Structure formats: structure tokens, C-alpha cells
């Protein structure tokens, strides 16, 4: 029920908004924000509720295909967090947009709700055709909003955005249709089965088609041509949604639709990883030279998502939680930065970095928020960004030291451009005289502050995010018990040699023990008397038995 509501109700909300008064922005904004809060609450409930699915309803049959297309929604940890991002950011966008679009707030809200529905559909769809339907549907409200509410170049930006992303996913449509003609139905598993049976050449073509759509959406170098102009010209609240939630659809697509369906060759995997890393460096370098505040943020987003894609294709064991935390952290922090940049633009009337400055003495509250949002985007430990980037680094480490080194290099670059950004916008003296526009409203400031606090909370307790990925394990591992017994037998004997310990370690690893459990068992084996190691291992044994 929750799933249906999250996907369909936003469209209903959009229709409801049509019925509100066009003139009275106040009343329509109240309704919109109330509904936004409702959706955010539902998405939190979705995360709390764990994995759920709806019943598969037959939707329609495509001529020439074996099975029908279903309307089938499912949620898992990754999807529900993405839904949280999309509804949460939409809520803040609805709040923040009150300051920008006074006259036609109603139309803006209609667009945002339709976009939210389409995004939720993308993340929750369990059927490939349904996924593709929503994936394409996202583009239209976004393009309309850009054309209606954007900056000076808005028409060009809207056209570039719409055409680039639609053309990018057109091959995927053909590929989908082709797979449908061989697969039993359009579910993920039958897709995977069908693709396995195809010759390798066909597989590669299909893979390329799928990849292209996600490469464009993320975007990954060299398909980022639409991004900077779109994010810069779109109204800031929309840019926040685009980068915070919509661009995640690309990374999401890699994880949920590419990795399970296609048997990837090692070359393809490492190629994609390096492409991601290159994008990370490229985005950071472009951000160093950006003169437009929103373009800087756009390139910064590109860099972070490049890192996320590199993390995905590390295919490490730690990949999924690492990338998920990174995506959530980036969604919140980049979103907050776009909102704040929007406020800065509203106040000063420009987003050129050289024309800004000196806001910290004029608007201390705004500048505090701005400064902290900037610092949190630097992945300082204690923020969610750090947990995400560190664990992605850890995942990349599986592929060797070099990828991790490159990723580390991007962290240095990100400090360089982000500090320059902060300095240009809020420090120093104002570069020019200007008529001050609307300041931060209390509700707006509060909602951004909540986002920043969330970043801190997830930074100190990322289990909120990572636990949603853990499926409760109930099976006992007989191999583990065996090893433990052996270990107990060995205890009385002479201390083990390094080789034996190494062997034991790998056996334990094969038996599915975690690192620290292994370490403590080994410490025990060594006849180590340090009480801590013993209690630790006891704890871990207890945990295992609890889990059983």
C-alpha cells in the first residue's frame, strides 16, 4: 500500500494542486508543503518497514513479446533511501521555492509533484518496462520546470536536457524491447536468464545500450554535456532535486539493472571503474575553474557521482553499503548547497562568483548554514560524506592501491574548489552594490539546518543507512562451527606458526567470519591473555548465537 501511495499519490497531489488558486501562493504553498511532509513521512516509514513488494498486476502486452508487462513495485534498502531523498528534497524544494516563484507557485508545485512521482516510480519499479517508463517520465516535468522557471538561458537548457537524456535512453528502449522478445516476462530475473542465453556479441550491444542511458543520466564523462547548463539554469530548488535525487537514478540503474542482468567481463568492470574515477577527477578540475556558483556545484556533483560509479564497479563486498551511504550523503549535502546557492542568488541577484562576497557580515545566519554545508561537502570525518567516501575508498582498495590513490587525489581537489567557493561567496567584502532580495525565511533555514544535522547524524551513526541493507540471516553456518571446534581443540597445543594462523584466517574468511571476529579468534589461538581480545571474541560468538 505504501509503495502504491508513494508512486501514485504524488500524481494525485499534482492534480490536487491544479485545483488550488493560482493567485493565492500562500494557500497553495501550505497545501503543497503539507503534502510534501506526508510523502517524506511515508518514505521514512518505507525505510523503517524493510523490504516489501506489491502484487504483480498485469499491465499490458507488447506485440511480439512472450510475457506481459507488470505493474509491480518492490522496495529494498537502496530503493527506499533513494525514495527518501526524492521526497525529502522535494519537500525542501517546495519550502524554498516560496521565495523564488511567488506568482506561479501552483504550477511549480504541480511540476515538483509529478517529478517526485516519476522518481519514486523509477526507484521502486521491479519491472523493466515500468522502470523505463518512469525513467523517461522524469525528464518531462523537469524539462517543463526548467523552461518555465529557469534563468536567462532556460529554453536552451530545457531543450538540451530533454533531448540529451531522451536520446541517451533511446537505445535502451530498443534493447529492452529486444530482450523482451526472448525473455519470459519483463521481470529482473527473467531478464537475467534471457541475457545469459544470448551470444556474447549481442550481450555486449545490449549492455552498451543499457549503459548509455545510465551514463548520460548520472552523468559520466564524456556524456556530461547537458549537466552544467541544466543545473545552472534550472531554478535552484529544482537543481537540488536533479542532483540530489534524479541523477542517482543513473547509479541506481548500474547497481539494480546492469550488474544483475549482464555477466560483465573483467575488462568492462575495470574500464567502468576507471571511467568513474576519471569523471571524479574531471569534475573536480572543472569545478576548480568554474566561475558560476551553480556550475561549480554541478561539476562537484559530477565528481562525487563519478566516485560513486567507480565504487559500484569495484564490485567489492563492501560496495553496496559504501555507495549507498555516499549517495545519501551526497544527495543531502549537494541538495543543501544548491538551496543555499539559490538563496544567495536571490539575495544578491547574481551567481557569478566574482560578483559575490561579504555575505558573512551581512547575513550571518545564512553564512553559517552556507559555510557548514560547504565544510560537510568536504567529507570531514563525523559527517555522512566521510563514511561514504572512506568506505568507497575501501571498496576501491580491492582493485589495487592506484584507484584508491586517484580517489584520494579527488578528495584534495574537492577541498581546493570547495574552500574557494566558500571564500568567494561569504567571505571578504561584497564585490558590488546591490539591491538585497528576499532573505532566508525561518522555515527555509530550519529545513536546511535539518538536512545538515541529518548529515551529522548519519556520519556518527551510519547504521541507520547500512542496516537497511542487511537481510536477517537465519541459517547456521556448519563450516564455521566446525572451525570453531577445531580451534578449541588446538587451544591446548603449542603456539601456532604464522603459516598455520594464516591458513586458519583464510579458512575462517571462507566460512564467512567477519574481520574482527577472525582477528579475535586468532588472538585467542595465539594464547593471548589480553582480556579484551577474549571478551571481544566472546561477544562476537554471542552475537553469532543470537543471530542464530
Amino acid at each position, binding site marked *: 500500500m505504501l509503495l502504491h501511495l508513494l508512486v501514485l499519490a504524488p500524481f494525485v497531489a499534482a492534480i490536487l494542486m491544479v485545483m488550488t488558486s493560482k493567485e493565492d501562493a500562500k494557500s497553495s504553498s501550505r497545501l503543497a508543503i503539507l503534502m510534501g511532509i506526508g510523502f517524506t513521512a511515508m518514505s521514512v516509514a518505507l525505510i523503517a518497514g524493510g523490504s516489501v513488494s506489491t502484487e504483480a498486476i498485469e499491465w499490458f502486452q507488447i506485440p511480439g513479446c512472450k510475457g506481459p508487462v507488470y505493474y509491480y513495485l518492490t522496495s529494498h534498502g537502496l530503493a527506499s533511501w533513494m525514495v527518501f531523498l526524492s521526497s525529502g528534497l522535494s519537500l525542501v524544494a517546495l519550502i524554498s521555492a516560496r521565495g523564488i516563484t511567488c506568482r506561479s507557485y501552483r504550477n511549480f508545485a504541480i511540476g515538483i509533484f509529478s517529478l517526485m512521482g516519476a522518481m519514486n516510480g523509477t526507484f521502486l519499479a521491479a519491472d523493466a518496462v515500468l522502470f523505463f517508463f518512469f525513467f523517461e517520465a522524469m525528464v518531462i516535468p523537469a524539462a517543463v520546470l526548467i523552461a518555465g522557471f529557469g534563468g536567462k538561458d532556460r529554453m536552451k537548457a530545457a531543450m538540451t536536457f530533454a533531448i540529451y537524456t531522451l536520446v541517451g535512453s533511446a537505445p535502451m528502449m530498443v534493447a529492452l524491447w529486444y530482450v523482451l522478445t526472448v525473455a519470459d516476462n519483463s521481470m529482473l530475473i527473467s531478464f537475467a536468464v534471457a541475457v545469459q542465453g544470448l551470444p556474447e556479441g549481442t550481450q555486449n550491444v545490449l549492455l552498451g545500450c543499457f549503459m548509455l542511458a545510465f551514463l548520460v543520466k548520472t552523468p559520466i564523462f564524456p556524456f556530461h554535456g547537458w549537466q552544467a547548463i541544466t543545473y545552472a539554469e534550472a531554478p535552484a530548488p529544482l537543481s537540488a532535486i536533479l542532483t540530489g535525487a534524479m541523477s542517482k537514478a543513473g547509479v541506481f540503474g548500474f547497481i539494480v539493472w546492469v550488474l544483475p542482468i549482464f555477466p560483465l567481463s573483467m575488462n568492462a568492470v575495470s574500464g567502468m571503474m576507471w571511467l568513474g574515477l576519471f569523471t571524479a577527477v574531471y569534475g573536480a578540475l572543472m569545478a576548480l575553474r568554474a566561475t558560476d556558483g551553480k556550475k561549480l556545484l554541478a561539476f562537484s556533483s559530477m565528481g562525487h557521482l563519478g566516485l560513486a560509479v567507480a565504487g559500484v564497479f569495484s564490485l567489492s563486498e563492501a560496495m553496496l553499503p559504501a555507495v549507498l551511504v555516499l549517495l545519501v550523503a551526497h544527495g543531502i549535502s549537494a541538495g543543501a548547497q544548491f538551496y543555499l546557492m539559490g538563496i544567495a542568488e536571490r539575495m544578491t541577484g547574481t551567481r557569478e562568483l566574482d560578483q559575490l562576497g561579504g555575505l558573512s*557580515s551581512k547575513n550571518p545566519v545564512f553564512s*553559517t548554514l552556507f559555510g557548514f554545508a560547504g565544510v560537510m561537502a568536504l567529507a570531514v570525518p563525523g559527517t555522512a560524506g566521510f563514511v561514504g567516501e572512506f568506505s568507497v575508498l575501501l571498496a576501491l582498495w580491492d582493485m589495487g592501491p592506484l584507484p584508491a590513490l586517484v580517489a*584520494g587525489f579527488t578528495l584534495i581537489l574537492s577541498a581546493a574548489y570547495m574552500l574557494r567557493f566558500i571564500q568567494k561567496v561569504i*567571505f571578504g567584502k561584497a564585490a558590488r552594490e546591490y539591491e538585497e532580495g528576499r532573505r532566508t525565511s525561518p522555515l527555509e533555514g530550519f529545513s536546511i539546518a535539518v538536512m545538515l544535522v541529518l548529515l551529522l547524524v548519519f556520519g556518527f551513526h551510519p547504521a541507520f543507512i*547500512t542496516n537497511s541493507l542487511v537481510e536477517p540471516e537465519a541459517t547456521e553456518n556448519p563450516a564455521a562451527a566446525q572451525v570453531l571446534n577445531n580451534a578449541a581443540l588446538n587451544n591446548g597445543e603449542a603456539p601456532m606458526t604464522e603459516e598455520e594462523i594464516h591458513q586458519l584466517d583464510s579458512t575462517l574468511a571462507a566460512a564467512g567470519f567477519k574481520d574482527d571476529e577472525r582477528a579475535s579468534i586468532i588472538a585467542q589461538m595465539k594464547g593471548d591473555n589480553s582480556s579484551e581480545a577474549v571478551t571481544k571474541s566472546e561477544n562476537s560468538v554471542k552475537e553469532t548465537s543470537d543471530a542464530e
Partner: protein
Amino acid sequence: MISLGLIPLFPLLGCIILGAIAVISSGSKKGPAEGFVGTLAVLFPALSFAGVALLSFNMPEGGIRETLCNWIDIPMFRVDIGFLFDGLSRIMLLFVTGIGSLIALYSIGYMHGDRGFARYFAYINLFLFSMIVLVLSDNLLLTFLGWEGVGLCSYLLIGFWNKDLKNCQAANKAFIVNRVGDIGFLLGMLFLVTVGGSAILNYDVLSNFISMVINGNHVEIVVPVLSVAGILFFIGCTGKSAQIPLLTWLPDAMAGPTPVSALIHAATMVTSGVYLLARLGSMFALLPVVLDIIVVVGMLTAFWAAVAGLFQNDIKKVLAYSTISQLGYMFMASGVCAFDASIFHVFTHAFFKAALFLGAGAVIHALAGEQDMRKMGGLLKKTPVTACVMIFAFLAIVGFPGFAGFWSKDLILERLFMNCSMFIPGFTIFGHEVPNIPLNGVVYAVGLATAVITAVYMGRLIILTFFGSYRGSKESEEHIHEAPAVMLIPMVILAFGAVFAGYLWADSIGIKFFAETLAPVVGAAQAYNTPAVTAHLNPVVFAVLGTVAALLGMFIAYKIYAKARIPAAKGSSAPEGGKATWTFLFDSIHKYVGIIPVNVLAWICDVVVDKVLAAAQWTLGAIATILGDGVASFQVRKVRVQIALSILGLIALMVVVLLTGGTL
């Protein structure tokens, strides 16, 4: 017994409360009441200090361990938030919270009337929180939280007066240079994780692992990997502790308020690199190559910075280079596995350098912001208390017998000579066998020479500032006044420490209290490497040599500067000519090695690659448009053609469907 978690919690609470006050009051004209804010700002660090003191007296031999909760738990990686209170963290915490409280007290006077009063103290409390976490944590990842946290606070406080873009640039530089080091730290942790899983990030597990390796005679197997990790950690330390090559940020960091320089850039944060080496001592003891690198880097840094200190006219810059030089001593000591000596120098240095900085702050305060020593002079009569404090601290830093620096510096020099096992490997030249040439004498000599230079530049500072006659303008002379009591009290306490802190470990008179408290932590690491010089040398020899060095330096300073006519100050206080080349040597290296290549790369991306891509994209678009125009010509008003085209299209579609195996 109080929980360890309370110690960092107090400053964190302080930070939150003061931050809230700062934000709420930012709209008002007047700002919050300074008395109230100041009380809060001192209260929380003082509470923390009280907690540490209480714990210190009741600490069991093995230390106290406490795990608060889990932090990160993902496949392959699990780290807890846990604290470790042992001999090492006890000493670090005592002086961090103690000096932190004193400097907070001093700041009330120094920052009086500043618009950002509450914000300043919020940052100071945040700094203390991070610093406490850094030294109290029981694993590397949590230490890294403090490590970057102190870097962040340093950034915030250097750029505290952010209306002046120069300060902001200094702050940015500090953060970015530190970031380079931090990446080393981060990669070092990853290397360790590959060796022993995420559990090895815990200090106890790590030292157990090391002792297991030693007991099992497997040192050779792990040394290559650990050496890489060690070098990476050391890169992290060079960033935070301003060693070659990442030292350029510290002199610039003097842009911040002076109490900040005293607390962060002299007494506490910059010593965290030395702390980390001591904490990982058991690992570093196994790595002779890394240790040699550390000795060489420390030696070069100490010498280079001491010479650079001679050239500065800005009183704070002199102290900044002096700090770098003293940190070089500490690193040299770490490099010969004398971790207790290095921490002892950290401890005494914290007192006398903080006293020097606070004294300099009082001088600057008295002269209404003047920092150029060429415009000072004769302040001994005008600000006698400040002068006395600074002279005591001066005697401590040059190593005058009986003062704090004498004990710690001589200990380091002695250990350098006795323990340094560096040598030039033997080689054959013209048929002559040349045996291994030990370098311990060279290292010792450089250390001693640096001690002489230290005495010269510090003597110059004292003479230019307090002796002779006042060289500033006549109007400014009338306004010179002694600092208020709230500033003097912390200074006097620190001066007291600068005199007596050394007696915690006065080897020559048989007091070894300090060494004994550190022994459980670093003893094993120090015992691993046998001293290079086995012959017994009387420690008095070293003490005498050290004293001679100090006296010689002071004498040279007196000869050169006491009678010399100081050239009138014109323009900026920055050194010029060859002096500037020496001072900004590493800045120019950074420029050519780091900044310019990155800018060139960015230029290539922006101007070449991106433009080519955009051109390709628009060309494709243009081709599509042209094709579309061509196809549009089919759109004719002839029904027959239209129908024929439609039928053709339909047939084509059917063929495609049939060919791909579908049914109609």
C-alpha cells in the same frame, strides 16, 4: 569513576551552546554579554581538565579502556567508537585541556570587543573536542576524526577575521596542505587494513599483532607492507606537524588571532604528528627505513626553520618558524625511537611556546596590533610582567640549565647520539675498502648547531622587543599598556610551567617520573632497537655541550643585535632578497610541483576537452536538424505519396517484428 566519554563531551556541549548563542545573537547590534559567554567558554574546558585530572590520579597501570558504541559496520569493515586512557593519552590530555583552559581564559581579554566573540569560543571548544578525541581514541579511524577535526578548527580560526581575504587564503592553504597529508593518513589506514583486517586499526590489536610478529620471527614478511603504511602515516604527520615538505601553511597560519596561534599552532595541534608516531611506536620500531627518513626530515626541518627564523621581522613569524624547528627536534627523537623523549619535549614545548605566543599576543595587544619587531623596543619598562614571562620562556626554549627546555632538548640530543643507527653503507673506492660510516655524530652536530641558531633568533626577538629604545611612532608610545589581569594570569602560570615542567624528568638529578609513566606504552617499542653506541658516555658531557650551545647563541645574539642600529621598518614585514628565497623555498616548490600542474590540467579539461565535447555534441545536433529538414520535404500535400509511405512503413515494421520472432 567518571566515564571517559565525558571528557570530550564537555567541550562539545560548550561548542553547541556557544554556537547557538553566536547564531542567535548574530542579528542584534550589540552581541551577547561577554562575561556570560566568557564564563561558559572557560567552564567547559576546565570541567574537562578536572575530569582528566581526576582520572589521572586513579588510573590503573594498564590504562582504562571504554567502548561507547559501534560506528561503522559494513562488510569487511567494522570500527567502534572507543576510548583509551593510558600513560600517553594521560599526559597529552592533561596539557591539552589544561593549556586549553588557560588560553580560553586569556582569550577573554584578547578578544574583548570583537564582534565574533561567541563564535570564537565556539570554535575553540570545538577544537578542544577534536583534539581530545584525537588523543583519547583507541583506534586510528577515530583518531582521524579528531585529526581532520582539528584541521577544520584550525581553518575556521585562521580565517576568523574573514573580511580580509588574506586571512581566508591562509586558512584555505592550511586546510588544503593538511588535506594532502590527511590522504596519506587515510591510505596508510587502508594499507593496515589489508594486513590485518579492520580490527587492526585498534591500537591494542595493532601492538598485539606487532608483538606476535616479533615473537614469531616474521618481521621480514610484514616489513615491506608496513613500511609503505608507515611512510603514508608519516606523510600525514608532516602535514599536521608542519615538517618538510608540507610545512608552508604554518607561517601563514599566524593570520589567526594570537591565542589561536598559541593553542593550535604551537602547543597542541601541531604536536599531534609526534603523538601519532609515539602511539604507533611499536609499528615504527620495526621499520628502519622509515625511521631514517623521519630522522633526516626532522633534522632538515629543524635546521631550515631555525635559519628562516633568523630572517623574520614579524614577531609571530619568528615564533612560527621556531615552532617548526622545535617540531623537527621532536621528529628527530621519534626517528631514533626515543618516543618518551619526543613526548617530553612536546610537553615542555607546550608550556614555553604557549607562554611565548601569549606574551607576543600581549605585546601586540599593547601596541594596538603592531607585529613588526623593527617598530618595537624598550618594552621591558612599559610591560614588565609580559617581558618577564617571555624572558623565562626564552631561557626555557634555548635550553638554559635548569629551565624546562634544557631537560627535554638535552635528552633528545643525547638520544640522537646514542640511538641513531643511520650510516652510509661501506663501499670500495680506488681499491680501498671504506667501512660503514655512522652518521649519529652528524645528526647530533646538526641538532647542536640548530640549538645555537635557536638561541640566536630567540635572543634577537627578545632584544628587539624588550631592550633598547622604542622605535615606533611617538603617538603610539603613549598608548602602550600592560595587559589586563585576565591575560596575565594564564601567562604567569605558563611561565611557571616553562621553568619547572622539566623537573618531571630530570635525568641528571635522578628524577624519571615522566619516563616511567610512558614506559607501559612506548617501552616495548623503544627496547626493540638496541642503541647504536654501546659505550657508556657520561650524560653530563651532553648537558655541558648543550649549555655551551645555548650560551654561545645568546652571546652571538647579544653581540649582533644589542648595539646594532635596527634599520627603520618600511613596507611589509616580509623578508626580502635571498632571505625571502630561503623562507619561501617550499612555497615555490609547492607552486611548481602541485599548483601549476593542477591548474594546467584544469585548463586542459576546461578549454580543450570540454569545448571539443561540446562541439561534437552540437555537430550531432546540427546533423540531426539538417536531416530533419531533409525528411520534412517528404511532408508534401500529395495524398498518394503519403499513403504509399505509410504502407511502406507498416510493412517495414511487420517485417522487423516477424524477423525477430514475434507474432502479429
